[in-house]
C-alpha cells in the first residue's frame, strides 16, 4: 500500500476541497464563456492538434477495413457497377442537356422580368471521418477543414439532398451539424404547392418536423420539400425531405407534420460541401442577429 505517503511532512498544496472549488468554478466559467460568447474556438482548434492523432488512430481500424474491402472487391462486381453507372450516366446526360436548356430559358426569363439571377455554386468533396461522437448530438466530422478553406455556415449535401451545415472548423477537420439535430432549422418550400415553411430537426430520431403549419395548410403525405433559398443560407431548390405523416388534431392550432430527410443523413460516407453561395443584400437591422449559424433561417 502507499503508506509511505501518510505523514504530512511535505507541503502538498491546497486541500482537495479547495482544488475542487477552484477547478469547478474554472469549468463553469469556461462553459459560460463558450456557450455565450464563443471566444474559445481558437483554443479549441489549438487543442485539437493534441487530440486529432488519437481520433485518427481510433478511426484507423475502420478505415483500414474499408480500404481492404475496396481492394478485395471482385472484378465481376466492378464490371457490374461500371455498367450500371454508364447506364445512369446516359440517362442523366439526356436530362442534363434538357435542364441546361431550361436553365438558359430561365435565365432569359429572369432577365426579362429583371429578377435576381440564380447563381451557380461550386462544390467540394469531403468524406465523413468520424460520426456521432456524443449521444446527445447529431454531428459528424468531415475530412476538410480550414486548410481547404471551409467556413462555418457552409451547406453540406449528398447526391440526394441536404445533410447539414458546417458549424465548426478545425485546421484539418470540420464539424457538420446534421439537419436532424434538435432545433436545427432549414427554410423549405413544398414543391407541389409552393407553400413556405421551416423544417426543424427532431433531435431524438432521424426525422424532421414542420412546426407552425396551420391545420388547413395545403400539404399532403408524400410531398417533397425543397430549400426555399430564403435567408440566403441554403441555395434554393435542393431536396430536403419527404412528408411522412400528417397529424391534424383539431384540438391544436397547428398540424403535426413529420418528414423523412431525402439525403442519407445517417448513411453515406461521401458528401459535398457547397461554397460560393451568392450573398444576399444586407438585411435591415431590426431583429438581433442569430448567434449560431445552425439556428439561422428562422423567418
Amino acid at each position, binding site marked *: *500500500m*502507499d503508506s509511505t*505517503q501518510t505523514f504530512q511532512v511535505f507541503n*502538498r498544496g491546497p486541500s*482537495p*476541497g479547495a*482544488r*475542487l472549488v477552484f*477547478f*469547478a468554478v*474554472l*469549468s*463553469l*466559467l*469556461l*462553459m459560460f*464563456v*463558450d*456557450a455565450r460568447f464563443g471566444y*474559445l474556438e481558437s*483554443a*479549441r482548434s489549438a*487543442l*485539437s492538434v*493534441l*487530440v486529432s492523432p*488519437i*481520433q485518427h*488512430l*481510433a*478511426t484507423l481500424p*475502420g478505415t483500414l477495413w474499408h480500404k481492404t474491402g475496396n481492394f478485395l472487391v471482385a472484378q465481376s462486381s466492378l464490371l457490374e457497377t461500371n455498367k450500371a453507372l454508364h447506364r445512369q450516366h446516359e440517362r442523366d446526360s439526356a436530362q442534363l442537356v434538357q435542364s441546361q436548356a431550361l436553365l438558359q430559358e430561365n435565365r432569359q426569363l429572369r432577365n426579362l422580368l429583371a429578377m435576381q439571377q440564380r447563381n451557380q455554386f461550386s462544390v467540394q468533396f469531403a468524406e465523413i471521418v*468520424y*460520426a*456521432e*461522437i*456524443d*449521444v*446527445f*448530438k447529431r*454531428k459528424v*466530422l468531415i475530412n476538410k477543414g480550414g486548410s481547404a478553406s471551409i467556413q462555418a455556415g457552409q451547406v453540406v449535401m449528398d447526391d440526394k439532398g441536404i445533410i447539414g451545415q458546417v458549424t*465548426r472548423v478545425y485546421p484539418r477537420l470540420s*464539424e457538420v451539424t446534421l439537419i436532424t439535430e*434538435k432545433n436545427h432549422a432549414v427554410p423549405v418550400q413544398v414543391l407541389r404547392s409552393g407553400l413556405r415553411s421551416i423544417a426543424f430537426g427532431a*433531435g431524438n430520431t432521424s426525422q424532421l418536423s414542420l412546426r407552425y403549419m396551420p391545420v388547413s395548410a395545403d400539404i399532403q403525405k408524400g410531398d417533397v420539400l425543397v430549400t426555399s433559398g430564403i435567408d440566403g443560407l441554403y441555395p434554393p431548390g435542393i431536396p430536403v425531405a419527404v412528408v411522412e405523416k400528417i397529424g391534424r388534431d383539431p384540438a391544436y392550432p397547428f398540424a403535426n407534420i413529420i418528414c423523412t430527410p431525402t439525403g442519407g443523413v445517417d448513411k453515406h460516407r461521401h458528401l459535398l460541401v457547397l461554397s460560393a453561395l451568392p450573398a444576399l443584400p444586407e438585411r435591415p437591422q431590426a431583429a438581433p442577429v442569430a448567434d449560431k449559424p445552425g439556428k439561422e433561417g428562422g423567418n
Partner: protein
Amino acid sequence: MSYLSQAHPEIQRPVSNLLIMASVFGALLLNSLPWEGLWLSLRPDFVAVAMLYWCTHKPLRFGIGMAWAVGILADVSDASLFGQHALSYTVLAFGGVVLSRRIQMFDLREQTTQVFFILLLTYAVYALVHWQVNGQVAWSYLLGCLTSTLLWVPISVLLQSMRQMRVDRE
C-alpha cells in the same frame, strides 16, 4: 479469483508517469472509437475509470488538476461544451482523492459499489449541465454509468498487473 479477494498483494514500486499518461491516453482512444447507436449509450467511460484508478491509488500523483486537464481534452475530442467533461471529471477526481484511503481498504468487489456512486455523481453532473444547456434529460446516457462500474474490476486488475510487470523487469 484470488485477485478479487486481495486488492494489494504486495508492496509496489512507484509507478512511472509514462504508465499513467499512457493509460489515460489509451482510455481516450477507446472512448473515441466509432461507437454508434445503442453501443454508444452503453459505452463505458474508459477515461473516467482509468482516472479514478489513478486518483484512488496515487492521489498525490494524479489529482484534481490533472483530471481537469484531461477533461478539457475530452471536451475537445467530443466537441462538447468547453468545461463540461472538465467539470464532471473534477468531481470524479475529488471523489477519488477524498475516498482513496477508504477505497483501498476494501477488496475489488466491495470497491465496485463504492466506485459506482462516484461514477453516478460524475455522470449526473454531466447530464445536469446538458439539461441546463439543452433543456432535455438524456436518460439513456446514464446507462454508461453502469457499464463503467462493471469496468472497474478489469481495469484495476489490468493496471495492477502492468505496475507489477514494471517491477519484474527491474
